C-alpha cells in the first residue's frame, strides 16, 4: 500500500507540475498585463529585438505578427489612453501631439486581432503624407471613434476592440527610441451612452 501511495504521489507531483507550468506559459503569453516590453507613455514597443526575449518571440509566434527589422524602424502599439484606460470601440479619442520629423511614419487603427476598420472611405489610418500637421512642433491631431469628427478622422464602427499602431520607418529611431514627449498622447473624449464610460 505504501508503494502504491508513493507512486500516486509521484504521479500527482509530475502531473501537477506540468499543469502549473503550462498554465503559467499560457498566462505569460496571453495576458497583456504580463507583457513587459518597454512602454513610452501609452505606447508599447512591439519589435524591440524579440530574438533576445523568449517571451516576446513566443508572443509574436503565437499571433503571427511580423514587426519591423532593426534597420527598418519601430512599431509602437497602444491599447490604452495616456492616462491608462483601455481603449474601447464605443468611445471617441483624440491622438494629439508630436510625430517624428523628417521620417516616414504611418498610424493604423485595428482591433486587438489586427482586423482593420471597414468603411466606405477605406480609411484605416493616416501617414506622414496625408495627415494635416501643425507647426511648430510637427504635431498631429487625429480623431478616431464611432462618431464622425472634423479634421483627420478614422471611423472605428465594426471593431469589437481598438488598438493603435504607430510605425516609424527610420533606423535612427530604432537605434535611439523616442521619448513620451516625442510621441502623441491618446486622449478620451466621449463614449456612446450606455456602452462604456469615458474612463
Amino acid at each position: 500500500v505504501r508503494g502504491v501511495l508513493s507512486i500516486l504521489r509521484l504521479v500527482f507531483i509530475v502531473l501537477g507540475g506540468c499543469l502549473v507550468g503550462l498554465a503559467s506559459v499560457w498566462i505569460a503569453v496571453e495576458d497583456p498585463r504580463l507583457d513587459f516590453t518597454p512602454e513610452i507613455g501609452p505606447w508599447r514597443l512591439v519589435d524591440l529585438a524579440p530574438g533576445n526575449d523568449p517571451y516576446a518571440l513566443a508572443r509574436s509566434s503565437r499571433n503571427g505578427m511580423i514587426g519591423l527589422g532593426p534597420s527598418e524602424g519601430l512599431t509602437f502599439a497602444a491599447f490604452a489612453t495616456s492616462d491608462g484606460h483601455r481603449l474601447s470601440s464605443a468611445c471617441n479619442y483624440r491622438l494629439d501631439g508630436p510625430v517624428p520629423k523628417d521620417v516616414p511614419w504611418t498610424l493604423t487603427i485595428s482591433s486587438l486581432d489586427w482586423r482593420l476598420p471597414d468603411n466606405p472611405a477605406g480609411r484605416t489610418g493616416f501617414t506622414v503624407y496625408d495627415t494635416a500637421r501643425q507647426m511648430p512642433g510637427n504635431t498631429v491631431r487625429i480623431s478616431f471613434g464611432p462618431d464622425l469628427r472634423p479634421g483627420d478622422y478614422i471611423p472605428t464602427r465594426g471593431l469589437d476592440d481598438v488598438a493603435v499602431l504607430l510605425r516609424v520607418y527610420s533606423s535612427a529611431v530604432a537605434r535611439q527610441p523616442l521619448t513620451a514627449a516625442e510621441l502623441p498622447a491618446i486622449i478620451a473624449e466621449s463614449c456612446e451612452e450606455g456602452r462604456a464610460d469615458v474612463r
Partner: protein
Amino acid sequence: MFGRLLRPLTALFLIAGLVHIIAILLIPSYAPRHAYDAILAAMPAGRLSVFDERPPPIPALDPAFVHGVCPITPATGPVRLGGVMPDTFWSVAVVSDTGRIVASMTREDADSGSVDIIAGKAGDVLPPSSVTNMPLVENAGFVLVRAMLEHQGARAAVVERLKALVCAPVGPKT
C-alpha cells in the same frame, strides 16, 4: 505537516518551472499560426508574389504599404532577389520560419534605387561581393518586400515596379 508538504511542493514547482522554460522556448517552432506556414500554404516558393488588392497572409502588416513575399524552403534553397525598387520608401527583410527578422535593409541603406540580395542558409552559396548576403540558419523563411504608398494614386506604379523584381532560387555553385 509543513515539512511533509515542503518536499513534494518544491518538486512540483521545480517541474512546473522546467515545463514553463521548455514550453516558452518551443512555442516559436510549434505555434500553429506563425507566418511561415500561412505563406507556404498560400503562395509558390522561390518566386515573388506581390499582394495588390488582397493583403498577404500575415497579420498586422502596414496597410499603407504594398507587400511582396518570396518564400524560401529547403527545396528552393537560397533565393536571389534583384531589381529596381519603387521611387518611394521601401524595405527588404529576411524573416526566419519562426517569424524573426534576421536581416533587413531600407532605401536609406541602398546606394542606388536597386536591390540585389541573396537570402538563405549560410554556406550554401558563395555570393559575389556585389550582392548583399542575408543569411538564414536554415533554408526556411521568406523575403518580405515593403513599399510605401505616398498616395493611393501611386498604387499601380508601385505594384508594377514590385512585380518587375525577380526572386528565384540560386544554384549551390553561385
